[in-house]
Every structure is written in structure tokens, then in C-alpha cells.
């Protein structure tokens, strides 16, 4: 109640006496000043922890990447040698390639599938339930999903069981180069729910009459998608694309669990950036602890992704559409 009066008073400055105007102005100034006074103390704890546990380690990683060091013996200055060696390291190049394949190929597949499904879900009955069920795998541990995925495709697994029942011969899905394809499919499977949910939230913001008008104009489903859905969800899609890039770079657990145990790494042919760093340092039966070399690889990946994000932002920038 008091608040209402205050708001009303501030909207009618003419009705106030001179003294009150002065008071009001000092109140305003006080407000701004008070807000500024809290700035530092409010930010300080987050800032200190952020710098100590994220920013400083990043800087240290750049510095470490110039050395040869296992954490115990004396550090040996290498300059940029770690970087030149990296680009002749077949395992690193494979993990770089795998990371980029996941980023681009799986990314395109996930977004296409999400578009198709969100388009299909527009105006569907039981949509909210369907949305929940599609989103749900996002809550589950990627290790669990990876184990289930392995059971699906292993020699005596469920997929081969179905194959045998319909008269096909079983396939060694997890052998040789096929393994990475199964990993790619699995990454798409565990990710798609999140992007469907995000894009669906964008689609829900579009007023219904745009679709009605498009339908009357004779637009088919593809044209409606192209001329209505896509332009009006563009901002959401560009945020989702950045999120996909970040999440791809962070991906570790789903691939790691394909090793099948705590101390066994999966074959290097399916490593990505995070697996490479772990494999060169703490991972495996006999951890190599190549701190400098692994740091250099992480910095290269970070640089590649930073460039990618900048390009993505350039490509996706355009005028906002007002609804």
C-alpha cells in the first residue's frame, strides 16, 4: 500500500512541494549511490572464487603448455615445441578431428532432428508430456547412457537380437571404425532432448496467426518452417548453437565410459579433446602425467573453438524480428 502511494507520488512531480522534490531527488541519488556501494561487496565472493578456480588455472595452463613437466621433476622450458609436436601427433590429430566431427556433423544432425520434431509437435495433443519425456535423458548420467548404448550394440546386444529375429545376420557394431559411428549416434541421442526443449520454447513464442495465415496462403509444412518458424526462432537457435559448441568441447563422460572400466581408456580412435588431455595425464593403467603437452593440446582446442564461436556469431547475426 505504501509502495503504491510512493509510485503514484513519483509519477506526479508537479503535485509535490519544493521540499518534497528535494527529498525525492536525494532519495533517487541515494538509490543509485546505494546500488553502486553494494556493487563491490556483492560481486567480490563470486569474483574471487571465479578467478581462483577458473581464470587463474586457464592462465596457468597457457604457461604450462610451454614446458615439459610431469609435476615432480624440474620443469624444462620448451617454448612452442609442444605445439609443433602436437601437429605431428596422430592421436592428437585424430582427437581434434573427432571433436570437430562431433561439433559439425552431429551438430547439424541434432538441430535438423530437433527442427523436425518441434515442427511435428506444434499443436499436438499431449505435447507437454511428450516434451518432458524427450527432455528427460538430459537429467541422466552420460555414463549410464553410455553403458546402455554399449549393451544395445554389443555382440549379444539388443540390436543384434532384433536383427536375428527378423532374419538378418548380426553385425559387429563396436569393432573397428564402426565404433566411432556408434559413438556419434549415441552423442546425438543423449543431446537431442535438450535442443528440442530449447527450440520448442522459441516456437511457443510465435503467435498462432502467423501459421494460420501461412496455411491459408497455401504454404506447405516445409515452407511454413522456412518462412515462419526459422526466422522467428532465430535468436533462440543462435543461443542454442553456441550452447552446442560449448557442450561439445566439454563432452567427456559418454566417450570415456566406452573404455568399460575405471582404468581402461577407450581406443584412441574415438578420443576427443577431453579424452586426449585425460589420456596424456591422469588416465590409464600407467598415467603418463605429461602436464605441459596435454595443456598445449587443451589450449589448441580452446583456440579452435573460440574461432568457431566467432564465425558462428558472425554468420548468425542479423536484425531482430519483432513479434
Amino acid at each position, binding site marked *: 500500500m505504501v509502495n503504491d502511494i510512493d509510485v503514484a507520488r513519483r509519477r506526479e512531480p508537479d503535485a509535490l512541494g519544493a521540499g518534497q522534490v528535494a527529498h525525492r531527488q536525494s532519495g533517487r541519488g541515494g538509490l543509485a549511490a546505494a546500488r553502486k556501494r553494494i556493487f563491490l561487496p556483492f560481486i567480490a565472493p563470486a569474483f574471487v572464487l571465479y578467478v581462483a578456480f577458473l581464470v587463474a588455472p586457464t592462465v596457468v595452463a597457457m604457461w604450462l603448455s610451454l614446458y615439459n613437466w610431469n609435476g615432480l621433476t624440474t620443469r624444462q622450458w620448451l617454448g612452442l615445441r609442444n605445439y609443433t609436436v602436437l601437429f605431428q601427433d596422430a592421436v592428437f590429430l585424430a582427437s581434434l578431428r573427432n571433436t570437430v566431427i562431433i561439433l559439425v556433423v552431429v551438430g547439424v544432425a541434432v538441430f535438423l532432428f530437433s527442427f523436425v520434431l518441434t515442427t511435428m509437435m506444434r499443436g499436438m495433443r499431449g505435447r507437454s508430456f511428450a516434451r518432458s519425456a524427450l527432455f528427460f535423458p538430459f537429467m541422466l548420467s552420460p555414463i*549410464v547412457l553410455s553403458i546402455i548404448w554399449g549393451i544395445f550394440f554389443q555382440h549379444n546386444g539388443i540390436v543384434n537380437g532384433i536383427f536375428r529375429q527378423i532374419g538378418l545376420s548380426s553385425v559387429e557394431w563396436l569393432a573397428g571404425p564402426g565404433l566411432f559411428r556408434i559413438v556419434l549416434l549415441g552423442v546425438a541421442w543423449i543431446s537431442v532432448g535438450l535442443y528440442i526443449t530449447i527450440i520448442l*520454447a522459441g516456437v511457443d513464442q510465435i503467435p498462432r496467426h502467423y501459421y494460420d495465415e501461412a496455411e491459408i496462403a497455401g504454404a506447405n509444412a516445409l515452407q511454413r518452417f522456412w518462412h515462419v518458424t526459422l526466422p522467428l526462432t532465430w535468436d*533462440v537457435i543462435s543461443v542454442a548453437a553456441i550452447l552446442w559448441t560449448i557442450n561439445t568441447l566439454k563432452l567427456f563422460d559418454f566417450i570415456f565410459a566406452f573404455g568399460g572400466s575405471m582404468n581402461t581408456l577407450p581406443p584412441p580412435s574415438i578420443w576427443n579433446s577431453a579424452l586426449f588431455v585425460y589420456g596424456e595425464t591422469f588416465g590409464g593403467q600407467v598415467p603418463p602425467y605429461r602436464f605441459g603437452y596435454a595443456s598445449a593440446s587443451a589450449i589448441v582446442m580452446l583456440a579452435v573453438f573460440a574461432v568457431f564461436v566467432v564465425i558462428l556469431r558472425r554468420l548468425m547475426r542479423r536484425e531482430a524480428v519483432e513479434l
Partner: protein
Amino acid sequence: MSERIEIEQAPKLAGSVSAPPQQPLRWRIHLGQKISSAIVWLVVAFNLVLVALVLLSSFKTTTEVFQSPLRLPAVWRFGNWADAWSGSGFGRAALNTVVLVVLTSIAIVLISAPAAYALARSGARGSRSMTTFFVLGMGIPPQVIVIPLFLELASLHLVNSLTGLGLVYLGSSLPFTVYLLTGFFRSLPDELEEAAMLDGAGAVRTFLKVMLPLARSGLVTALMLNAVGLWNEVLMAIVFIQSDSKFTLSLALMALLSRIQYSGADYGLLFAGISIMILPMLLLFLWLRRQVIEGMTLGMGR
């Protein structure tokens, strides 16, 4: 003629169910819609059957898991759960994980909320560039910082300690949480805040009594998303924790997976362990699913 009527009616149709099929075109659209719903429900069914199969398999023998995946177990083997809980260390790991995740998520939100409020609303010089500085941290993956963090915590004697792991989680979760909450605080109306301050409430009191309660849905979302992410985290846990007694659920599951390689595959036991790990997330999701989904998508949209 009928087309003209449709044009006139079109604006009124907004938000209502589509008109009954009258023409071949309409009819085709209707059929198309049926097919697409069928496809959507097929994908939905896949996810639901999967969860049901996992829970069901946790009561079976290995033979049953593979020979009759869709049937109920002949005998309900609750022993699988007991074995996983005490024999395979899932009980202790569950306790470790709950304590770690709850305390860390609360700490993350308690530290991020004031920072996000100050960034979003103080109007202080530098708050824009400070926001960018925080947001950039979202793009730094764990593999960049894991080695320096290991050295840092080793010098503080915090390796192989759940406290140390909690600190690592805290630092790496701040950027996303600050980003999410900044969006929420920015969307709140100015009037209430100004009114509270003109009433003589200090900045801190205004924040605690007026703004924090208004941002409650954002705080709950931030809490939830952090809890889910940390519950399932692997890379940091596997690097920073070595003793079985300090294992989180991710590590207990990986350890069980290793053991099964040597002692013969007991898939009933494995699925019991998996169920112990996913059941809390399942219940949390059933309880707060609207909150999670809407908060998450709102945070993304801003």
C-alpha cells in the same frame, strides 16, 4: 467462398484448435499431423521403455536381462539392490554425492545471486564488462583447467578430498549460474526495488527482502540445473578422488563396471547400481519438471 470465410476467421482462430477438415488440402494436413504425432510418440516411447527396462532389469539375473528383456523377472531379486548398496559401495557413494551436491549447489547459488543482482541492476561503471568477463568462463572446458587445479589443490592438501572437489565444482559452476541469474534479475520490474529503497530499506535489505523472493523461480532453476550437472559429473571426480571411501556415484558406477570385467558379468547388479544413481534424478524430475524445463529455456532465451 469458403476460402474467404477462412480468411476472415483466421485472426479469431489464434490459440484455438484448428478448423475441422473440409477440403482435400485440409485433410492431407490432418493426415500429416497424425503421422507426425505418431513419430513423436514413437521417440517418446523409446525413452520411457528404456527407463522402465533399466529399472526392471535391476531385479533380474544376467540371463533374464538378455533373454527376456521385456518380461517381468521370474523372481524379484531385491538382493541386487542390497548388493549394490552395501557390497559395491553405492550406499556410501550415494551419501557422499548427496552431501557434496546439496552443499555445493546451495553455495553456488548463494554466491552467484548477489553477484548477478549487482551485475544486472547496480548500473555501476564496469558492470557490463564484468558480466562479459563472467560469461566468458562458460566457454572454458574442464580439460583446460584440470591440470592447474590439480597442482593448486595439491599444494593446499585438498586432493582426494570431497571439500577440494566441492571447491572445484563451485568455481567452474559460477559463470553459468551468474549468467542465468543475471537474466532473471534483469527481467524484474524497477518499481518495487525503488519503492523499498525510498521506504528507507538499505540496499542489502532491499536485495534480501524484495528482490531475492521475486527471483525465486530463477534461484530454484539454478539450484536444480547445478545439482543435476554435479550429480553426474565424472572428469573432475575421477581426477581428484582416489579412495573408495570418498567415491561419488559416478565413480562407484565406474568401479562396479571395472569389477564386472573380471568377476564375470552380473548385469542385474550393474542395473541395480545404475538405478540407484538415476532414481533420485527421476524423482526430482517428476517433482520439478515444469520448473526445470521452463527455467532452463527462459534462461537460454534471455
